[in-house]
Every structure is written in structure tokens, then in C-alpha cells.
């Protein structure tokens, strides 16, 4: 068990307090989390912090960050993140994001290319590709979701999702988790729905704006991500000028949680 190199702090923003983790030495690297709200005690961030000043904000509605009720769509999300950049003194950091966070990173880099020095998209949402649609995250059971999120179902988080499924199945409609246990999940899914219910986890205008990105870009696709089909990473890599596409083996959608060391090494090599 390693102690985390990142310390949590609270930053005032225009929409309220933001929970931000920061640590490590080197050039600034912002990490934008996925809809699962990973951040606290995440080994992946410690790995990155070996060579970077890692800044990991929790988006409003996640963790202790406030103000989600003032954010209606991706445009609001981008302005919130720019606000955070200003307050943290970040002129043009490297920006990495996974899934929902990858979508946000791409939105910042298309709208304000000069604010992103390097870009890393990990299993990023944000596009609609006919015939290769992103699977549903708002109505499926935790057990079904676990199979898209993890390549190895023995991962503790996958095992927990499967166990939850088993409890629901056996308890039937009488099974009710305590409210306090469900609260974080209810909160993060509600926050995600604000941004990605309709259109579903994409911005129809994003694809035609990708040519605007000027940052050197790495597109990471986890080999066993069954939530977002490979065509998404391929499209990002093809349409962002000069982008590189890398495949991460033995990982599914939540690659930063499942393969922290391997993913961090891949990113560190690219950023160096």
C-alpha cells in the first residue's frame, strides 16, 4: 500500500467549491475523470505524479465538488474547466481524460486549442458513429456494466458490481440498498445525465471541429473496451491532426483503474 502523492484541496469557482487533487513535480498535467468519478486514492494518478505536476479536479456533482445544477451541457462544462484553469494558474497544461473526461478534454482542445499543450484521450466518449454506438450506461444492471468496464472480472470493483447484481437478483424487488450507500452513485449518474442524456454521450458538432486541435495528441484505446467501440478511437486519431493511436492490452473501459501502471507508462512516454 503506497501513500498517495496527491493532496486534496478545495478551490472556489464560479459554480461553487471544487475538490482538486494535486501532487508531483514536473510540467502540469490535468486529469479529467470518467463518469465513475475516479480520483481519491487512485494509483494511476500517483504513477503520473512521478514525472508531472498532476492536477485532478472532481467535476461538479462528483465527490465534494459543487455547482452541477448550474451546468446544463458541455458548453457550461468547458467554461467551468477554463475557470478552474485560471484559478489554478494553468496557462496551457497537458490534458488527459478518460471516457466522459476524454470528451471534455476534446471539447476544450477544439474550442480553445491554445489552452492545451498536449492531449491524451483514453476511451473517450463524445462522438456518434452510426453502427458503432456507445452502449447504454443509464439503464443497465451493474453486472452487465462490469463486463464492459473490466477485462478481468476479478478486479475488486468488478467483483463488487457483480455481487450487487447477485443481491438484487436474489432479493428481487424487495431488495433495497441503504440510501447512504447508493447516494454517491445516484449523484454521479445524475451529473453524467446532465451532460450526456440527450444527445447520448456525444456532441454532434465535435467531430467536424477536431481539425482545430493543435496539441500533440495521443488516443488510447483499451483493447477490451466493449462500451465504446474501436471506431471512436480510430475516428479521433484520424481526424485530429497528427494524432497517434495506441492500444492498451488487458484492459476494458475503466483502463485507468484496471491498468494504472501500464496506462501511466504509456502516457508518460508520450508526454516526455
Amino acid at each position, binding site marked *: 500500500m503506497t501513500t498517495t502523492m496527491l493532496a486534496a484541496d478545495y478551490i472556489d469557482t464560479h459554480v461553487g467549491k471544487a475538490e482538486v487533487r494535486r501532487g508531483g513535480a514536473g510540467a502540469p498535467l490535468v486529469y479529467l475523470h470518467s463518469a465513475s468519478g475516479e480520483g481519491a486514492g487512485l494509483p494511476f494518478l500517483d504513477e503520473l505524479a512521478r514525472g508531472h505536476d498532476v492536477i485532478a479536479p472532481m467535476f461538479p456533482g462528483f465527490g465534494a465538488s459543487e455547482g452541477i445544477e448550474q451546468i446544463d451541457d458541455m458548453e457550461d462544462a468547458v467554461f467551468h474547466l477554463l475557470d478552474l484553469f485560471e484559478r489554478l494558474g494553468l496557462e496551457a497544461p497537458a490534458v488527459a481524460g478518460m471516457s466522459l473526461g476524454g470528451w471534455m478534454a476534446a471539447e476544450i482542445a477544439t474550442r480553445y486549442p491554445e489552452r492545451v499543450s498536449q492531449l491524451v484521450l483514453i476511451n473517450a466518449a463524445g462522438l456518434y458513429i452510426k453502427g458503432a454506438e456507445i452502449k447504454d450506461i*443509464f439503464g443497465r444492471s451493474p453486472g452487465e456494466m462490469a463486463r464492459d468496464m473490466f477485462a478481468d472480472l476479478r478486479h475488486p470493483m468488478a467483483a463488487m458490481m457483480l455481487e450487487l447484481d447477485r443481491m438484487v437478483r436474489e432479493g428481487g*424487488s424487495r431488495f433495497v440498498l441503504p*440510501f447512504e450507500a*447508493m447516494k454517491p452513485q445516484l449523484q454521479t*449518474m445524475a451529473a453524467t*445525465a*446532465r451532460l450526456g442524456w*440527450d444527445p447520448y454521450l456525444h456532441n454532434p458538432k465535435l467531430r467536424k471541429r477536431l481539425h482545430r486541435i493543435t496539441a500533440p495528441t495521443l488516443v488510447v484505446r483499451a483493447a477490451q473496451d466493449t462500451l465504446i467501440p474501436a471506431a471512436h478511437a480510430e475516428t479521433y486519431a484520424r481526424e485530429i491532426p497528427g494524432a497517434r493511436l495506441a492500444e492498451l492490452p488487458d484492459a476494458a473501459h475503466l483502463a485507468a483503474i484496471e491498468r494504472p501502471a501500464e496506462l501511466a507508462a504509456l502516457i508518460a512516454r508520450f508526454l516526455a
Partner: protein
Amino acid sequence: MRFFSFHLAPYPALPADYEGPAWVTCPNELFDPAIGAEVYNRYLDELVYAEELGFDGVCVNEHHQNAYGIMPSPNLMAAILARQTARVKIAIVGNALPLYDPPTRVAEEFAMIDNISRGRLIAGFVVGGGPEYYSFSINPAHARERFQEAHDIIIKAWTEPGPQEYIGKHYKLRFLNTWPRPYQQPHPEVWIPGAGSLETMEFVAKHRYAYMGIPYFHMDVFDRSFRMFREACEREGYQYDPKQAGWLAPIYVAETDEEARRQYEEHWWYFTKRLLPGININPPGYTSLRSMENIMKGVGSFALSLRDWQEVVDGEYAIVGSPSTVLEKLERNLARLGTGNLLGLFQLGTLPAGLTRRNLELFATEVMPKLRARFPDGKPMLEASGVA
């Protein structure tokens, strides 16, 4: 006490080998138009019959893409009823406001029905069920805001001279000027159904509308909900009027208790086991955390959890029995809940036409007159029963 006959218009012929939910993803291939033609006409006849039997009103409601209730447009049903009845109130409970864009459509159609029926419309407004936010791809996080704005637009259109302007977050109307205006002035009575959400109760209390408790819960859940509603009225600085509360309950009357259960039970299980699954989907952001906590308290007390008939009887999920049994149960619960409106579901699931008519007749002749005598209009119900 006012008595309403409420029809859900269930699809009664889901194939025995279909085990999926009745909502959102229930394949529409399973809808047989021959059965549709039959039951739409039959259900309308059952509502019209309620007027003949002396009910005060009839109720229809709105649901989409499901087999539970095949009235995506209750307004069409109400328009027919406006011409086929002459006396009863016609309660549309309600239109799911966030699904109408712009919601002036509701102001227009409700006003048309109110004119055609010469002032017999009761205007129900609902947020729409969780499944509807999947069926319409409308962001559930905006459900309450859209409902609030749509409500304001309709009331403004009905009560303030047009043309006027409404600029909100979700709706922007530069020329708000609906024709026709409602027959009832300033506007028809407004009913809001709710399943225990505190926000809904506070909204109803603030506007002095009527709160209709959504059924299929254990009686204790209703008891808590109506108590919360009365308290919400008190926080607004007034004592609630029983007319502001309605209890919606499945009711079945036969000659004896045994006969009632024998005739009714299979249709009840078709309803709870086949048509209810899927109704409880709660999309992210649809309910505030504050309300979610309260709603979750009721989950284990929802009819989906029922295992056997004894539980139905114990929790009084349905009021079933001989006329004297049904009278006793209704009298006791009405006094406990303090609701001045009783909304009965006299047809449920696969309950066939013959039994439905007989049920309506026995209720109207053997039960309703006695309840009318017991709960005269304008008399506080809770005080009379010593509950308050």
C-alpha cells in the same frame, strides 16, 4: 366525498411467454390491433357507464410506449367522453407537461375539452414517469424545471390577457396567446398526482391544487404521504381542504368475499406481475436526492414486491370483497387518510367486461351511497374521525 371511476386502459393480452418489462422496451409487435380496437371501445363504454351509475367523475391518464396503459393521448379519450357524457367531471390525470414542446398544446387541448364539455374538465399536470424520459430521450435532469415552466406557461395563458411573452430557460415564446380560453374561469380545477416526492407536495400545497396519491403502495405509505401533504399545506399557512386530496385505489366488489377473490385475483396478478414491471425505472437526475430518500422508503412497500394474496389484503393494496367488506375498508381508510376524493380503479389488468360492469354496479348501488352519507361534502373528514 366525490367518487371517480379511473381507467388505466391496460393492454390485456401480453403473451404468456413474454417475461420482459411492460415499459420502454416492451416490443410493440406484441400489440394486436384487433385487441386494441376491442378494448379502446370497451374501456370508453366502461367510463360512460360510470356516469349512468351516478359517479361524480371519470379519470384518464397519460403513458407512453408501454402495455400498462395504452393512452398516450388521454386528451383523445377525454374529447370523446366530453361528447358521450353530460354530467360527470372529466379528469385528465394528467398531461405529462415536459413531453409537450411547446406546452401551449396542453393549454389549448385542455381548453377545447373544457369548452366542449361545458366546464367539466379537471386539469391534471404530471412530470411524467421515469420510463417516459427514456421513451422521449428528454433529459431527466430537466424534468422538474420543464414541468415548472410548462405549468407557469399554461396558467399564464389561461389567466392573463394575451398576446404576452414567456421567456424561460427551456421554453421561449414570443407570442403566448392561446385560443380557446377555458370554459371554467379563471381555470379548471388542477390535480397533481404524486408518489411521495416532497417537491411535488410542496408545489401542490403552494398553489392550493389537489394532490392525488399514486396507488399500488402499502396503506402505511399513503398514510405518510397524505400526512406530509397536510403538513406542506400548514407550512403554506392554511389547513388543507379534503377536496385537495385524492386516494386512488383498485376496488373490486362481488356478492361475497370468497367470490370477489376468486373472480379478481388472477387479473390482479396479471396487472402486478406483467404490467407493473418497468414502471419504477428511475432515470438519473429525475428525482432530487432529498425526495429519493423518501421514495426509497416506499420501495419495499410497492406492489411489485407482493408475493401472495395475504400481503395484498394486509397492506390493503386493493380493496376487494363483498359490499359490506369493501364499505368497511373504504370507510376506515378514507377517515384515516382524510381524502375528499376517492378514485377507484374498477377495471385492472385482464379483468373482463362482464366482471368490470358488475363491479361498478355493486359499488355504485351498495357502497357509494353509504359512503356519501358517512362523508358529506364540506365536512372535515379527519376531525370527524378523530384522527386530526
